[in-house]
């Protein structure tokens, strides 16, 4: 025993055991179970039988599932691009010398701190077809004569939920990028300005390359959060109108839990994995490349 405890390798394994067990029980097992369920016709309350690829075959041909894939991609791409743009802009502004800097930084973080379900309820009122404050204000100003049907018209609903997601996600991107900005040594800016670089050139050749590693991490997270969003949609529309805002996550829930078809729901959730993996791989093998970070291209 004593010998064992003095053995470096054995001790290492021993110390890793609790973490390993936690990962196994709370990550590997549920993921494995979910994968398995996707290949069965399990219902809630009834164990399923292996049906092979049947669930996937059905989902690929199912118009609602196809629409949810489109919605998810649209939601993720539009929201992520705008979150990145606005977040970076905000980070650059906050990095300047502003009065009440820390107060402003704290305020910026607010949308991220408020529980999503609560901010979603606020948006639900903002977008309400009868009580929307936006519509109310615009009618009062005489700019519109009929309330805007934010969540009732398919494309408007898609854009509205995307806007709510952006509102919530920008602070996360901004604050993380701000942290990244502050690690950039001022001497680089001094040196570049001595060389006569314009602010735009400084941004392009100093700030952006130095920021790339953190952008990679932040955007990976941002894309993952957006792709798997659930709460916002569930509170605002439950996937309506006409399934125009159903994301894969919300449809997977609707089919799997209230609908009872847990096998199909699991299969739908599994279909999200390739997209998520692609996002992660892009970030790790693409954005973290040293050549890219240093402003160069592929050799």
């Amino acid at each position: 025993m004593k010998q064992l405890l003095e053995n470096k390798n054995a001790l290492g394994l021993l110390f890793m055991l609790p973490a390993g067990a936690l990962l196994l029980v709370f990550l590997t097992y549920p993921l494995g179970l979910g994968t398995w369920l996707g290949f069965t016709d399990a219902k809630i309350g009834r164990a399923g039988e292996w049906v092979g690829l049947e669930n996937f075959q059905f989902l690929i041909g199912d118009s609602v599932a196809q629409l949810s894939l489109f919605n998810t991609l649209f939601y993720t791409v539009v929201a992520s691009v705008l979150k990145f743009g606005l977040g970076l802009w905000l980070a650059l502004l906050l990095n300047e010398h502003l009065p009440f800097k820390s107060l402003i930084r704290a305020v910026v973080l607010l949308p991220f701190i408020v529980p999503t379900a609560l901010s979603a309820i606020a948006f639900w009122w903002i977008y309400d077809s009868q009580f929307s404050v936006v519509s109310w204000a615009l009618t009062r100003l005489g700019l519109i004569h009929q309330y805007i049907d934010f969540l009732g018209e398919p494309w408007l609903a898609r854009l509205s939920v995307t806007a709510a997601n952006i509102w919530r996600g920008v602070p996360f991107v901004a604050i993380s990028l701000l942290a990244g900005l502050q690690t950039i040594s001022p001497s680089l800016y001094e040196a570049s300005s001595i060389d006569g670089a314009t602010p735009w050139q400084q941004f392009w050749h100093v700030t952006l390359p130095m920021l790339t590693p953190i952008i990679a991490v932040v955007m990976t997270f941002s894309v993952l959060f957006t792709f798997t969003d659930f709460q916002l949609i569930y509170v605002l529309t439950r996937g309506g109108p006409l399934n125009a805002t159903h994301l894969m996550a919300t449809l997977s829930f609707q089919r799997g839990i209230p609908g009872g078809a847990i096998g199909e729901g699991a299969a739908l959730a599994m279909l999200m994995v390739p997209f998520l993996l692609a996002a992660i791989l892009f970030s790790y093998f693409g954005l973290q490349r040293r050549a890219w970070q240093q402003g160069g291209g592929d050799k």
Partner: protein
Amino acid sequence: MSQFKRRDFLKISAGLAAEAAGPLIWVKDAHAQWNSAPEKDARLRVLRWSRFVQGDIDQYMANVKKFEAKYGIPVRVDNESWEDVRPKAAVAANTGAGPDIILGTNDDANLYPDKLVDVTDLANYLGKKYGGFYAACEAYLRPDGKRWIGIPLGAAGSMMVYRESALKAAGFTSFPKDTDSFLKMMKALKDKGTPGGFALGHATGDANTWCHWLVWSFGGKMVDKSNKVVIDSPETIKALEYSRELYGTFVPGTLSWLDPNNNKAFLDGQISVTNNGISIYYAAKNSQDPKIKELVPDINHAEYPVGPAGVGTAFHLFLNQMIFKYTKYPKAAKEFIRFMMEEEQYGPWMQAGIGYVAHPLAAYAKNPIWTSDPKHTPYRDVVKNMRPAGYEGKLGYASAGALADFIIVDMVAEAASGAKSPKEAAERAQKRAERYYKV
């Protein structure tokens, strides 16, 4: 096995014969006897849906206290949002652990009938004593026509809720009884600037109830008696064409409506007709806001109009009480349900919710809550007149899945809004439903 079935059958047929011989009009049957001594040291856990109206839970808990005092059996009652009860109940059935009694909705019991305690004796007792259960109860809880797998609790009725003043202004003295005049009224209301509105978003309660009524009222249905999907039919298409016209009279925004939207819009005076439980009236009556309180004399209720099908086709949220086989105290559980269903408890409970939940037992139609305020009366017969979900097929995973996936609601919304033609919408619904009913 076959022997068991036969014996079972004999026992049940005897029960049936006894029931058939019972009086049709309610007479408190002296022969309705109940003997089921609860197990010693029993304790019960009940999972129920959270209240829709405050009076419900207050009186329910008062009845629970009474039960505890009378039997010395502690009862723990947990509340969950009604849509969350279904998955919990299913997991409890599957894993064999959880609350002893679950108050579920719609076709829950049909998902795991073999996991539920046979309550035929209790159903027979209650039926005999209180004039029998209405027919829809049997579709839900006596699926094989023999064995009761749960005790009906009632249904949360969905009715037409309207403003009398608006109807009068539009030239209608009473609420239309057929779909043609209903459309005329909706058009007149729109012209007067007091439109109606019905939820077409994923509103589990409100959208499902009125969309099912609409399709059924024209003779459309999801499946036939053999569970064959027949939603893509000329009748359905007629219903969808009608929905297109009806939608033109709605207040803007109904495509996004979830369950609370119509309540808010109605109480704010923005719509003059919608479909809902009695909760709008309840909220107005109990409101502290004088503006909302003013609405009380103007609010009234009516049954859904009858369409070309020629019969009432309302759909309501059915509520049941299930005892799970894993319970250690099946007798105490039965005793609890019996106690709660007896007139001394059920009557005051129904009154406390001003009839939000309508009774499943014929005798309770005499309860004064249905006549003390004539505005309650339309909700009286909801269980008597309702059609079960998944009409006209058998209830089970397919009907539950199709309902939860909003197949009917999406179809009506697509056609009504003009996003798809009635034919396209019906075809799509057919395809989606066939998946659940596995063709």
